[in-house]
């Protein structure tokens, strides 16, 4: 399963756009890239998923370059409530031997 590397933490201010990049140099052909958000004392929750180019939903955008060795989660106009830990996960299926292991995540702090 592809190992991921993210910045440990990031600071931003309300109203700014935040971009969090995840490196996954050994991503496999069939792997998808998924981002999760975790608030304190809660389990992580799904934000967005993509395979290549760009994906956008009501919460975020996900940019994936052609080589797919990295991906960037973009949060437009963050608010204080976006303060959370963001995890990048790369994988496709969970047959025996393919387990989902999260990296350390990026702790985003949004300031007023």
């Amino acid at each position: 399963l592809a190992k991921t590397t993210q910045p440990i933490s990031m600071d931003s201010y309300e109203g700014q756009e935040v971009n969090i990049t995840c490196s996954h140099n050994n991503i496999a052909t069939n792997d998808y890239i998924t981002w999760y958000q975790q608030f304190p004392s809660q389990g992580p929750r799904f934000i967005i998923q993509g395979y290549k180019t760009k994906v956008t939903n009501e919460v975020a955008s996900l940019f994936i370059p052609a080589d797919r060795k990295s991906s960037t989660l973009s949060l437009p106009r963050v608010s204080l409530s976006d303060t959370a830990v963001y995890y990048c996960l790369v994988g496709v299926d969970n047959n025996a031997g393919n387990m989902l292991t999260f990296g350390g995540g990026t702790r985003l702090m949004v300031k007023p």
Partner: protein
Amino acid sequence: DVKVTQSSRYLVKRTGEKVFLECVQDMDHENMFWYRQDPGLGLRLIYFSYDVKMKEKGDIPEGYSVSREKKERFSLILESASTNQTSMYLCASSFQDLRPSGNTIYFGEGSWLTVV
């Protein structure tokens, strides 16, 4: 809405006690997971099950065992609790195929275990 329910939100146990953490999911997911989360260490996988009675060790299985007798239920067992197992434990479930069609990993709310 998918629901992953963990039986206890907060527990306090004594060193040496046997501890059961129960997890139930209602989406007929094949896969279930137990993670442990400690400050600054992210999510660490303890055990994983991809089918009834099947299990695989994750990154930190020592001191833990699991049981999956029914598809919807996955139990984490601490045979003899120790203080270094004080942590938040997260259960999760998913379909085997994570290709986009709404498939993702769903987490419970977490169980805070304190071992004294």
